[in-house]
């Protein structure tokens, strides 16, 4: 079982994310993918993950600004695939541009969170997110 699958190509952000999750001390399991295509391979059991049974996370945390395949591409392709059509996905982005936010919603994001830009604030946001998406949210699971 995996709680959070985080797609983030900035190693600092991934590192800070890891520190904050550990700090929460709730034994939350997570995996970080540093590219959109690797995340997609995992979710759709293709490429490196072909013939493997991958586990779907309770939450896909998606940075939108990625090199190569963008967050939006990952989002669209995830929604286009039956197994992950209803996977809870939260955008986690530096951009607060209304245009970016709107297109994310149009592509089927479940929530949009702007990266707060400070350690403490990010910690607070992550705590709330984990509370909600891992504890309170009811999912549709396709096995």
């Amino acid at each position, binding site marked *: 079982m995996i709680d959070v699958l985080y797609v983030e190509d*900035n190693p*600092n*952000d991934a590192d*800070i994310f890891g*520190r904050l999750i550990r700090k929460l001390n709730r034994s939350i399991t997570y995996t970080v993918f540093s590219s959109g295509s690797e995340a997609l391979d995992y979710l759709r059991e293709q490429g490196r993950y072909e013939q493997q049974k991958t586990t779907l996370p309770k939450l896909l945390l998606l940075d939108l*600004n990625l090199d190569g395949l963008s967050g939006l591409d990952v989002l669209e392709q995830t929604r286009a695939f039956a197994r992950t059509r209803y996977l809870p996905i939260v955008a986690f982005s*530096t*951009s*607060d*541009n*209304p245009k970016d936010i709107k297109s994310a919603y149009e592509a089927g994001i479940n929530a949009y969170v702007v*990266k707060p*830009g*400070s*350690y*403490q604030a*990010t910690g607070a946001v992550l705590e709330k997110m984990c509370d909600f998406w891992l504890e309170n949210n009811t999912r549709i699971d396709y096995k």
Partner: protein
Amino acid sequence: MTPSIIDLTNCEREPIHILGHIQSYGYLIAIQPDTYAIVHASDNIVDLTGIEAAQLLGQPISKLLTGTDLPGSTLIEILNVVGRNESWESMNPHRLHLNGKYWNLIIHYYKGLILLEWEPIGNDQNLSINQQLIAQALSEVQSSRTLDELLQNTARRVKSIIGYDRVMVYRFGPDWHGKVVAEEKDDDLEPFLGLHYPATDIPRQARELYKVNLVRMIADAGSVPSRILSKPGWPENQPLDLTHSVLRAVSPVHIEYLKNMGVQASMSISLLYRGELWGLISCHNTSPRFVDFPARQAAKFVSQLLSASLEFRKDKEDQTNLLQYQQTGQQLHEQLLLSDDVVRALTKLPITALHVTGATGAALLFNNKVYRLGATPDENAIRALGDWVGATGTESFLETNQLPNLYPPAETFRAVGAGLLTIVLSRELNEYLFWFKPERIEQVTWAGNPDKPVTVEDDGTRRLSPRKSFAAWTEIVHNTSEPWSEAEISVVVKLREDILQIVTKQANEIRLLNQRLQLAYEELDAFSYTVSHDLRTPLSSIRCYTEILVEEYGADLTPDAQALLQKVIDSTDRMRQLIRHILYYSRMGRSELDTQPIDMRQLLDGIREEIMVTTKDRLLHFDIGETPAIKADPTMALQLFTNLLSNAAKYTQLTTEAVVRIKGVQTDGEVIYSIEDNGIGFDMKQAGKIFDLFKRLENARAFDGSGVGLAIVKRIVNRHQGKIWFHSEPNQGTTFFVSFPVIPAT
């Protein structure tokens, strides 16, 4: 036959070159060039040869002289000589002695026939006199200073040569009406100098003949013309063409005209300018008078001399004008190239558009503004004129010296603009350059009323006849200006090209600038994105790791190191805020406006709540009054009022009881909101900088801020075509006013 409708074209239709008669003072036969067989003969030939015309028709030429003392072979020899040289007129006149009398034989070849005409000879003495006169005329042409002087002297020469009572120089106007411009006459005659004659006096086909046959004499208007007989069946329905005949009979209409004038003999000598009829030397004699061929030739020579001189003088005059206008046009072109400002180049410098023509006024209608130079119609009249020119479909230029006749409203300004020359700069944009010439109120003295050429006979039939009365009839020629010369037109047409070239060049430059602006915007987009993401991401890392340092290793750090780390954190905070504001600022300038009515009560309440949340522990009161709706982009309106209200909240921080009053007023054209606070205020002397990007006022330094907020506000107001102003006093608070037009710009 009496035509049912009489107009002056009847006169124009009269076939005066094939009237079928000759004047009876001479004799005519026409022969075929190959056989010398006679095909036409004048009825009166019997008087010369003793043989009836009818008996000559179809006969060889040798038959002609059988009744005379001149051998027929003489004539044949003459014909052979001139025929061989194909110069039928080289021997004209050929003097022949016939039955005790001398005759001038005049030969010419025309339309397949040789015409032989005999006319009496004059006094031999004349010949040498004529040559003297010609020589004098030549020096006259060289020495006359003015055209008037030249014409007057020519009239005198011609009168000496032909000895008529009256010699006039008659000049045609552009509408072919004529004016007597020089006159030499016997003292007892009434002067015709200065009189105008309507164009119908000399119909078109007569003018054509004047161009071909330069000298024309009517020796006796009262004589009975002699009919021309034709060989039976020769040629069917084809009368002899008398275009070049010296004896050609006169149209009955013209005879009547002459009789009305009391003229018994007349002679006209054509004056040509570039192949067109410029005028006539018109000679009248009150009694029949025959002028022999050599004298007529002398007169013709004088007229040719004058014609040549006309061309020379007129060309020279035109050249001088053209050169002057061209130089001015060139200067204007240089001004255009240098200033790149069409209006300035044409109207504001020492050389203006007024100088390229002989106009007394000029006006430029450009960019919806009217610029006037010299004497012109008023601004409204010029705008209306522009509309009219646009409606005429004129593509490049329009020229008239009778504007009121084309465009009746022009009658009101005919004193300055009876003549118009205009070039079209853009019909779409209604841009024109006009030149005006004033009305030439001309006291024209008509020789008879030109409007009444038809007379009613005693028996009630109407017929066309020359006027009976030559009492001067005066008409004021209104609505007409001096005509525009070819030089004037050619120069303005060139000027049009010069202007359009500059206009096009400028349009292209603007297009290029637009393209560059587009590129710059795209680059700015990319830059904004970089700022929003790529700069903020490392900034966040700096911030987060500093926080981690403080949090996890804070205990190991000295208080000084801790304070330094806090400065790092504060600085990243400030930088993040700046980046965010710059982004907002650029976003407010470019994003599309989505204008809609905004519920201001809801918007302002929302902002108040947000501000109240972040300003705990303060006595801050928002007093929201009337809230008329505005039409604006919702995101931008929110940004605008958020900035203004947060500012009010911010700059009242030091006030013990802060009050911010917001209210809107709806007027006819706009909605004005005022935001009044009782905060620190500012000195109005610094007010000029308040909306500048990154500019902060001195007394605001203690407060957080990037200096971008009001710049964003200003930008939003501008985007909505609104206005923003304020009033403030240090320590007395500030009031901002923003107005939105009721109908927002799209």
